[in-house]
């Protein structure tokens, strides 16, 4: 019997994934809970032998499992494809009327997936978030192992060479920040991950934490080696209960792997301003989340007055890939001008195909909104798009030729 794969990402859960999973289990199937592919309009997305159905309800389960009308094979259980007529390229793909049009065929062939360049979200949809076996089998810990074989200066040189800039919005070069912390004096230093993803229409941090928590942990451990930090904190907003639970579970599993470095999850308390790095540091210290004057920079006087790297989730999660052999040059080969690498772009609001789309910098808004996003969910013409979250700019259709990058 084939394995039925269903995401346990918060959005899939909010759309009924647990009930669908329970229905497959009751039908005798083995169900694996994976991360989300990021095709959120199709959640709950069900995957069997690489074929996808979505959005699936409990009522669809019987139809997905029943024998197919052609070829004489049975639905999910059919493993011997030779018995099917050769003119059916995908014998497991039922006709649309059988599934009410919910079968999307092979997931990796879907244009939304096939057009992406996934580095940070390379495991999305493919692995079980809390499986150390899945993580190691997909290149996990290779970046940390290699980083620890290098001198801290060498690690920072590679991060600088990759062109990685802060993914939280300001776009500060990660390598320069790390170098400042490395050179700062004193034996106590911190790595702080800003996971206070409060802006509406942003959810990539949440998906990364829920779907690939070990990658964030590995990135923080690499940063710790590079700057000489002993303790890390991940500050997650309280509105993300699933991300908090996943990271706590992942940290318990990965404790010995990252030792002597230690990481602790800290939970925000509903204050939007704590997404700003200095108020986040005050909050971690147990104070009111008020903004501090800069300078001093957190890299010099950060958490408890000690030199501190404060980076966003996506910045730290990009690091393991950069630190594998040849990773920095590979990262630098993506993107344009001063915007290097890939960006996990979040398509949300009144859009037909909302979700997570990771691609190299330089893609046009037109392509993102019309080709990939499919226009509006309501079917009306697009009037304006807000880029960069609630604090970003509103752009009208005549501006949709603008390329997606930091400087635009």
């Amino acid at each position, binding site marked *: 019997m084939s394995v039925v794969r269903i995401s346990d990402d918060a959005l899939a859960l*909010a*759309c009924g994934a647990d009930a669908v999973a329970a229905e497959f289990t009751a039908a005798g199937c083995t169900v694996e809970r994976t991360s989300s592919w990021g095709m*959120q*309009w199709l959640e709950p997305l069900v995957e069997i032998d690489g074929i996808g159905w979505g959005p699936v309800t409990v009522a669809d389960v019987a139809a997905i499992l029943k024998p197919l009308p052609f070829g004489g094979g049975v639905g999910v259980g059919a493993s011997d494809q030779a018995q099917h007529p050769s003119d059916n390229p995908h014998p497991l793909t039922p006709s649309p009327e059988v599934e009410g049009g919910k079968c999307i065929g092979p997931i990796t062939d879907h244009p939304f997936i096939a057009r992406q360049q996934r580095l940070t979200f390379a495991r999305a949809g493919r692995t079980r978030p809390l499986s150390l076996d899945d993580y190691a089998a997909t290149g996990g810990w290779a970046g940390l192992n290699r980083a620890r074989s290098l001198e801290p200066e060498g690690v920072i040189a590679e991060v600088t060479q990759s062109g990685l800039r802060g993914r939280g919005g300001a776009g500060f070069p990660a390598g320069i920040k790390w170098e400042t912390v490395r050179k700062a004096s004193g034996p106590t230093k911190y790595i702080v991950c800003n996971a206070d993803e409060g802006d509406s229409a942003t959810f990539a941090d949440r998906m990364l934490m829920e779907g690939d928590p070990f990658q964030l942990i590995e990135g923080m451990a690499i940063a710790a080696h590079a700057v000489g930090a002993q303790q890390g904190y991940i500050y997650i907003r309280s509105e993300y209960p699933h991300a908090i639970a996943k990271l706590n579970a992942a940290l318990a599993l990965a404790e010995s792997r990252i030792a002597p470095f230690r990481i*602790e999850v800290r939970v925000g308390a509903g204050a939007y301003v704590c997404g700003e790095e200095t108020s986040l540091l005050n909050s971690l210290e*147990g104070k*009111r*989340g008020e903004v501090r004057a800069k300078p001093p920079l957190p890299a010099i006087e950060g958490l408890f007055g000690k030199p501190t790297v404060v980076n966003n989730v996506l910045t730290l999660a990009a690091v393991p890939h950069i630190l594998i052999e040849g990773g920095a040059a590979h990262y630098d080969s993506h993107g344009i001008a001063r915007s290097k690498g890939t960006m996990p772009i979040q398509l949300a609001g009144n859009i037909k195909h909302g979700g997570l789309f990771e691609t190299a910098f330089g893609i046009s808004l037109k392509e993102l909104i019309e080709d990939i996003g499919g226009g509006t969910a309501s079917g009306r013409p697009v009037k304006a798009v807000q880029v960069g979250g609630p604090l970003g700019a509103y752009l009208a259709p005549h501006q949709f030729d603008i390329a997606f990058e930091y400087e635009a």
Partner: protein
Amino acid sequence: MNQQQRLAEICAAHAGREGPLLPILHDVQHAFGCVDAEAEAQIAGALNLSRAEVHGVVSFYPDFTPEADPRPVVQLCRAEACKARGVEALVDAGDAAAGERVRISAVYCLGLCSAGPAARIGDTLHARLDEAALVALVKSI
């Protein structure tokens, strides 16, 4: 166990941590449904802070409340992406279904932005709400 003992236990559980105040306040809020003046005073004593310092922190963060509210809560997302997907049109019906029995509070982003309108009850999330689904949700708790 009375409130004083339970508070002492919570403070002791976080004794070894750096910056223990927020983790303590979360536990107290969870245990008692609020962080009241008595709790503030006891926490201040345990951490060697002034009551004013603790009160300043408690009053800064929306997650901590001075009084317990026994009503069940539906947190409805009212942020931009959910607004673009029509949450405002559901609010009146939700309020009517809630009446005095259920509290509907606003939350600003649950990270379900392509599948709004979205809501949270405890740690359970709900998305793609329409008026009927929101009313059913309010009536179900």
